């Protein structure tokens, strides 16, 4: 990914992050750091703790110890909605769209999760509020356009095919105007062709929107392609195994061993 990576202050720093669930240490002393605009991969066998790391960043679960810094400031203990407003958005491993809302409404929600007018204006719709509504409407349609879902705007989210749902989740996440986008297995359940389209879409989004992105993926060809100019973190059993370029990762004996018994695509 040819993003201009300034060697400035990191946008995200995770230091010695650890979380225990009862007797199980799901994430163990993980440290990583991202520069603004980077696109990194996060891979590892099932149960390695990848989604847990995302959950920790967004504070869906509380860390047991360690530190998470966004633009130098700690976001530990902030509520998930605060963290979203601070600029981190995500998609989910098990898709979490609003099932009875249309595709359009799902995306729109990301735009107005913090309403842009006051409660009083909601009851008595002032000209300003109407204008805001129109603008939001436009932006939602644009976002649907970006992920090629414009024609499905009025479809109920739950009735969309799986692959389209994943794209919709991305559009919704983008609607929150994040600085950082966390994608959790965006290619899950996709075939070869769909993966190719997805790679193109994600690359396009990254280049035009300049988000910092972390992507969890099991489809190796997707990861290796999208991270070819960047690096990949490998997690195994909660700990950071190694980090490196796609080539390094693919030939790393430890990584191969961690995946032994797990045959994935690519």
């Amino acid at each position, binding site marked *: 990914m040819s993003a201009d990576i300034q060697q400035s202050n990191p946008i995200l720093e995770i230091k010695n992050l650890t979380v225990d*669930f009862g007797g199980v240490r799901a994430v163990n002393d993980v440290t990583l750091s991202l520069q603004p605009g980077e696109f990194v991969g996060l891979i590892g066998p099932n149960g390695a703790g990848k*989604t847990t790391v*995302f*959950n920790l960043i967004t504070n*869906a*679960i509380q860390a047991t110890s360690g530190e998470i810094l966004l633009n130098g400031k700690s976001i530990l203990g902030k509520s998930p909605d605060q963290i979203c407003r601070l600029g981190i958005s995500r998609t*989910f*491993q*098990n898709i*979490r769209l609003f099932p009875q809302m249309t595709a359009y409404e799902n995306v729109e929600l990301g735009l107005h999760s913090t309403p842009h007018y006051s409660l009083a204006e909601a009851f008595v719709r002032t000209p300003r509020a109407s204008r805001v509504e129109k603008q939001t409407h436009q932006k939602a349609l644009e976002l649907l356009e970006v992920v090629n879902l414009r024609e499905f705007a009025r479809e109920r989210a739950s009735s969309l095919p799986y692959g389209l749902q994943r794209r919709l989740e991305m559009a919704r996440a983008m609607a929150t105007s994040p600085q950082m986008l966390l994608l959790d297995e965006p290619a899950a359940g996709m075939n070869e062709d769909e993966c190719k389209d997805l790679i193109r879409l994600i690359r396009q989004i990254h280049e035009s929107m300049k988000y910092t992105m972390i992507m969890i993926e099991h489809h190796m060809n997707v990861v290796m392609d999208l991270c070819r100019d960047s690096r990949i973190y490998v997690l195994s059993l909660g700990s950071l195994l190694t980090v490196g370029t796609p080539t390094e990762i693919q030939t790393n004996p430890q990584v191969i061993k961690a995946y032994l018994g797990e045959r994935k695509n690519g």
Partner: protein
Amino acid sequence: MELFIQQIISGISIGAIYALLAVGYALVYSVYNFTNWAFDAFMAFGAFMALTAIASFFLPFWAAALLSIILTIILSVGTEKLAYRPLRMRKAPRLFMMISAMGVNLTIVQLINRSYGGTFRRFPVEHVQPIFVGNVSIGRMDLLAGLISFGVLALLWLFLYRTKWGLGIRASSIDIMTASLMGINNDAVALIIFALTGVLSSVAGIFYGIKYAVYPLMGLITIKAMIASIVGGLGSLPGAIVGSMILGVLETLVSGYISSTYRDLFSFMFLIVILLFFPNGLMGKSGEEKL
């Protein structure tokens, strides 16, 4: 001083009844993450069945109690199968399950109301002299209720912690999906839990009926049990017992020393205050959602 002890004893005896209900409630909640609103109805049902068995069919007390327990078990398990399971299988939202449970509650309580009328009835048990310890009187029924409640809870504890079935239930309360993947029969778990619910609610109903009165809306006392369970920590069984005892005693003290009018208001305020300082209850485990 004696008045104080008297109040404490009275508080403990009502606390015991709350404990039976709170544990039943916590049991269902901890496994299914669901508030069984029909619990209210089961309790009234149990009390009325026992009452009818004694008053209309002249069964002796213990036989009537046993019959009532069996009937309530059938009712409870039936409710689970017909009104809850279809929704649970569909992974219906929490709201829908609550509405269904409330529906069951309404139906049963109002059927009882229609059939028996709303008058307060007394359980036809002989009035026996209370036991005196110094100047403090302990009603025999209260003592019996207390002993039996603790007995039932002790049996429950033994079941949960010393038997294979109990292990299955405890596993289910942590993660029902994993438990079923490990070979635990979900249908059996549901059967056992709701059977237990039936037992706990009917026993509580009978004791409450004896101590106070039997009337269609008597199940409202389950709100107190729910409050106690929340205070103790929703989903925690020991918490439910602790919460019930605390609530029972405090409530009785308020009723005795301040005013019985404000007893219920107090219980409610107590709940709010506790939650403000302990958002998960005193001993609660916070539920982690799987993302």
